[in-house]
């Protein structure tokens, strides 16, 4: 899974390269980001939600390492739920946008990059849901929990990538990268 993380990390590196490459091309004023820099209103709390879900999953991991099955189930379950909340908030943020996918280069970048991230979150949520189920069925104990470790690694990766996406889309326009 660590190599999946490497190759997926490379994928996001290329996505963000595309963003920066297109961001520094000449644009008509006000079109990059389209409608001005995106608001922090939903995205900032949502970032915290995602980080909390990572913390919950880590709490579950440390739990099973010490043989605590209830921490495993509840930690994974909480991580799953927080992941779903993140997806719901992202959906509202998408719905609020005044532009759509074909509007401009910026809109394409916004929806495709965050869309790629949401797809990864969705995949992560499905993994966590399966792990929660398997944990509740008592499949894992303090010696056998490789699945948990592997799934959690992916989930932490998805969260770290969000920080890069968040910085790129929400912070850099305030640092001068806008037209």
């Amino acid at each position: 899974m660590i190599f999946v993380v490497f190759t997926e990390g490379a994928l996001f590196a290329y996505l963000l390269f595309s963003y920066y490459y297109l961001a520094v091309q000449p644009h008509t004023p006000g079109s990059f980001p389209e409608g001005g820099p995106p608001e922090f209103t939903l995205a900032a709390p949502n970032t915290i939600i995602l980080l909390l879900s990572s913390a919950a999953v880590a709490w579950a991991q440390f739990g099973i390492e010490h043989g605590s099955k209830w921490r495993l189930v509840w930690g994974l379950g909480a991580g799953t739920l927080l992941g779903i909340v993140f997806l719901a908030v992202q959906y509202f943020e998408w719905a609020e946008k005044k532009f759509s996918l074909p509007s401009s280069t910026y809109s394409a970048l916004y929806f495709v990059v965050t869309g790629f991230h949401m797809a990864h979150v969705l995949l992560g949520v499905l993994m966590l849901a399966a792990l929660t189920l398997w944990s509740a069925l008592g499949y894992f104990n303090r010696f056998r929990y490789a699945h948990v470790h592997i799934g959690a690694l992916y989930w932490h990766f998805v969260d770290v990538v969000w920080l890069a996406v968040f910085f790129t889309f929400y912070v850099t326009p305030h640092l001068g990268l806008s037209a």
Partner: protein
Amino acid sequence: MSASEYERTPGIGDSVRHPEIGERLKRLWESEPGLRGWLTTVDHKKIGLRYIVTAFAFLVIGGIEALIFRLQLSWPNRHVLTPEQYDQLFSTHGMTMIFLYALPILSGFSNYLWPLVLGARDMALPRLNALSYWIYLFSGIFLYAAFIAGFGPNDGWFNYVPYAARAFNGGPNIDFYSLGMVLFGMSTTVGAINFVVTFLRMRAPGMSINRVPMITWGTVTANAGNLFAVPSVSLAFFMLWLDRNAGTHFFDVPGGGQPLLWQHLFWMFGHPWVYAIVLPAMGMVSEALPVFCRRPLVGYTAVALATVATMVLGFGVWVHHMFATGLPPIALSFFSAASIIIVVPSAVGVFAWIATIWLGKPVFATPFLFFAGFILLFTMGGVSGYMTGSLPVDWQLTDTYFVVAHLHYVLIGINVFPVVGATYYWFPKFTGKLMDERLGRWNFWTMFLGFNLGFFPMHVSGLLGMPRRIYTYADGMGWDWLNLITTVGGFVFATGVLLFLINVVISHRRGRPAGDNPWDSPSLEWATTSPPPPYNFAVIPTVASRYPLWEDRMPRSVRESATEAGLVLDHGREAVGTGPLDAQPDIILKMPSDTIVPFVLALMLTVLFVGLVLHWWWLAVLGLLGTGAAALVWLWPRAELGETAEAKSG
């Protein structure tokens, strides 16, 4: 459930004195006969041979395409093909050779050989191995289905926008190419993961990092590179598909996009890919050439380090494909310098091979001829590459036949010649029979002379200004005779390839029996039978030097490797996991048994892509759900793999 149940000291056995060990392992590891076994097998040897056969089939198809358009180009103003047919043929030829042949053939050899040279029972992730093959096969069928329906790619294999944009290319051609390449990229990625993990985890006890066979250095480096390169092209093709189907503006200027983004993303992948499809072949030569020089490779460490250095530098030279696009001079200077510096690690191998021949006692068997021919062609292709690394030369030669000559010297010289040589060398291991030596010499000289007759004149036609990718040309340009010679050379070369295939078929039917180690080679694959049993080794070998089977002629102090006695591991399908540096054994790995799931997953993934390309969204959803369901079944924790709490001691 106590911890002790997971701990077991594996038995040590002697496979010569106790042949029943092999009998027991055979029952555990053998695939079922019939169609079911054929679809479910995860045996790396079967998967490897499938890769090799499929890739050679694509080589033949791509070669026939080339012969057809060489007929068109053999003389000015010919009309064998229409311009559109010509465009599709040369694009499909490039796609076939570069994607569907060049890497898969090397993956095939590596898949077959890796566990054998590493002294392992299988690859680290056998099911992933099967998945990688099935996706490769289905993506090849996907791309060729479009070609047969008349919708092959028609914008060259690197598919530049704006020609590839919807406005200039209205048919579904590029949609098939784009999605087919994303699918193919998945096959490459999962295969690459498998090679890297196997390299780090599956080496025989004692095979420390400075003792691994040279063939693995090339493949592991190439595949580690692929992990970082492939996402770039998959993303580019996906964005292009969105531009064409969802109205996004990544690459079109009126919408605020930038066509050069395509070129950057493509070549950030494309140049590392060039190294990915030559480094494993160079590794095969480093592995097999010394056997025919009757001495170890000169400069093992230097060659291994140079392999890795070439790949790393290979990520920093992509702009040399874009010298003529008007980028700032500072960027061009940097990439020109990097492209020239990369010659240094690339040349380390050449000097090591020459020194090995020089200091050894060469045996001029057919594999040796191919490897020696490869060194010459690689040098020529390297020099023409070095020339175009220089900006002024590149500006003169870009998009001419000089570049076509260069890339064929590189790809045929460094990929096809070593691969054919490697087939002569390892065919006895694959089949238990030797290939015909007399036909082999005819095969080599026909290919070698035909290749140079065909491709060397392209340098000249390029210098005379003939652009690549034109479907015909006027007479009186001074290119006529050169093109005729090229076409004749192409047909001679193809005859050479035909002789090779004839030799394979004849030798497979009635070749001389090979025995376990016909070439008196030093590496572990020759310690087992030809062909090897399903479990490869009855007991896990222990390795104490770089050349385990040559220890009997080395100083007494290094005679320590053992192939007849070692770990037995026969409680189900088992392998030993070793540490990444010193290869000290640290775990018994429970290996999965045969399963249909990789086949189903690959099929469902293909259904998803068929749905996307045809805009049959219900089919795409079906494929997606099927893929998810197959993944869930695949990953469901299993006691027999030691994944769940109730696992019994293995």
